[in-house]
């Protein structure tokens, strides 16, 4: 099953890098928004997550704040 995955990140955020590496390892395609540079994306992230902290990951409308491998595996049906 293909999932609609978006990650909101900053260039300096290690947990964002971990999340992206996790997606790549599992062959999950994702769209990335750099919220340090893109203010519209930053506002979208705040609207979705009601908080200011990266990464925010949207999987088919389900919002994850931070990088928790187990949670992502569950949402993506990988476990």
């Amino acid at each position, binding site marked *: 099953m293909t999932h609609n995955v978006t990650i909101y990140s*900053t260039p*300096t*955020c290690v947990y964002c890098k971990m999340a992206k590496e996790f997606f790549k390892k599992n062959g999950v395609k994702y769209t990335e928004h750099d919220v340090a540079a893109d*203010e519209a994306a930053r506002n979208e992230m705040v609207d979705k997550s009601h908080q200011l902290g*990266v990464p925010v990951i949207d999987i088919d409308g389900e919002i994850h*704040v931070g990088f928790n491998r187990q949670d992502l595996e569950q949402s993506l049906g990988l476990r």
Partner: protein
Amino acid sequence: MYDLIIIGGGPGGISAGIYASRKKIKTAIIAETFGGQSTVSADIQNWVGTESISGLELAQKLEAHLRAQQGIDIVDGERVAKVEKTDGGFKVETQGGKTLETRTILVASGSRHRRLGVPGEDKFDGKGVVWCSTCDAPLFGGKTVAVVGAGNSGLEAVRDAIPYASKVYLFVRGDSVRGDQQTFEKISKDPKVEVMYGVQVQEILGDQFVTGVKYIDAKANAVKELKLDGVFVEIGSVPNVEFLGDLAKKNDVNALVVDYATQQTSQPGIWAAGDVTALPYRQNNISAGDAIKAVLNINDYLHKNK
């Protein structure tokens, strides 16, 4: 029944795992993640043998080195909930409901951010209250932020915020800065930075997001308010020892007291190394060395107590 359970996946836990495997000790390592607290560092220049490496890369190398070992059971993605004494040793329970039994334990669970413990801190967690300045500083472009704490990590948080924020306050609790003086001189010269002394945060204010803080101005002996968009908390660390209960002796700040020659705690069968201990100097290299020392001592103990 294991001979050794290592708790923690930082430089200490991983070094211990490698040595335990090479000593053919029947070992399990329980770690929520690998790499430890320096995983978020942009650049580490003091990991011996490596001139420069990012925290993430070091974490990945450490994990790979551990996974290359034979005969060690790796329980990852799990946090230890409880340790209990049994007849032959100890029972270790994880938050995920796993139970493991062992003759000895090495606690290398490190430490975590100390919280201010004031109203608003939990409520605005992630809503302007920041625990990872490297991660989240870019979200405060054009905003006003305060860094609480003037140790090295506080000064680094100021440095992280300067390229983005329009104004950065540094709240110093006393009348002097504890962190590196060179770094302090550099950041305090930046026109965006204002250092405030004698500041004790009383409350973090906000509606949906942080809007400011209420604080005691010790010099003026008055309670004041300051408008802010972000509060970066960097007031030191607390050891991750709750799961041990009263099994081993701790000092006044809850760090495990160990014999520096062997890393043994007051509880026979339990050793500790790294930031969770009361020993001074929080360094990756020291955690690694102390954890290795512990494993070698555990190896002697296991041979003597067959």
